[in-house]
């Protein structure tokens, strides 16, 4: 089951308050939402909270969904907005917390690591985390939608409500940052 398999019929049932239909939507789409949140927020607890908030929002505003646009991009948009808002909020909270504990701790806590199956996987995840960390949330969101969710430029533009050329320039900037980070020196 994936996000493409969600039918109009199911959406209409969910709009009328059918929880089972809504659960079907959740089962098909929660992995996408959760992974965008996880990659952007880089913390499981935040990702769970974002996923919860997204689906509560979806439940509330499903009746406003227009069938002309794709459900996927509509959902991406809600997810990305919720994630960015959460990042702003936690950054603010952390700064306050930090100011308060200034004398006690010198460094912000790193995101907690989960149980990974192999060392290789763990190393790979750590590498991805570091790469994403090098990007600001706007670039990061574009990269996550492109690389991890495989969205086309026009889909990213729709999801973020930005111009397709902005998608292009953000991906370019993000990748240039990653190149520099990787130690690539441009040849003449």
């Amino acid at each position, binding site marked *: 089951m994936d996000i493409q398999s969600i039918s109009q019929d199911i959406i209409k049932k969910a709009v009328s308050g059918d929880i089972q239909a809504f*659960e079907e939507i959740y*089962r098909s789409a929660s992995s996408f939402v*959760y992974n965008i949140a996880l990659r952007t927020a880089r913390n499981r607890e935040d990702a769970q909270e974002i996923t919860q908030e997204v689906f509560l929002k979806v439940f509330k505003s499903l009746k406003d969904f227009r069938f002309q646009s794709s459900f996927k991009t509509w959902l991406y948009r809600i997810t990305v907005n919720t994630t*960015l808002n959460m990042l702003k909020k936690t950054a*603010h909270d952390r700064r306050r917390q930090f100011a308060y504990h200034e004398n006690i701790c010198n460094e912000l806590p790193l995101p907690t690591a989960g149980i990974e199956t192999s060392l290789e996987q763990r190393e790979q995840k750590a590498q*991805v985390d570091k*790469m994403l960390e090098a990007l*600001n949330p706007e670039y990061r969101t574009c990269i996550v939608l492109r690389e*991890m969710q495989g969205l086309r430029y026009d889909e990213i533009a729709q999801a973020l409500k930005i111009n397709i050329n902005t998608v292009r320039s953000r991906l370019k900037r993000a990748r240039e940052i990653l190149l520099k980070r990787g130690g690539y020196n441009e040849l003449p």
Partner: protein
Amino acid sequence: MNCHKFRDIIITDYIDGELAEQRKQEIDHHLRECPACRAFAAAVRSMAVDPLKETTLEEPPAFLWTRIQSRLEPAHSGRGTRWLNIAVTLSMFLAMTFTGNYLVSGMLGSATQQETIISAEVTQQLSLSEFNDMPNEQVEEVYNNIIGG
């Protein structure tokens, strides 16, 4: 087209498969001829694209649906609900009265107070859409201000 222009396309549309066939062939042709651009394309793939693509997706924990579901179900009607309704109405009335007073005192209040209110509103309205028309550098700056570096 010079190498610089080619690389702008390589790092975006070419790598992402967004090019029309003819355009793609043009780039392929240049890559065969130009070792520097070939090295660039390889670097982009290995440092900025492939490692991110290989990430395995995670499933959200099973308890999450239960948590969400418990927030979806409408409150059961019963004795408690009536008291709750009264309490809600009462607190809304109090809140309205309070807001009214606050607004009036805000209007009459000092300039500093008004500034505080305005800056709070600005912060609130600073949502994603506001960044759309900004150049990237500016967006970066705003974000750095918000996130704090």
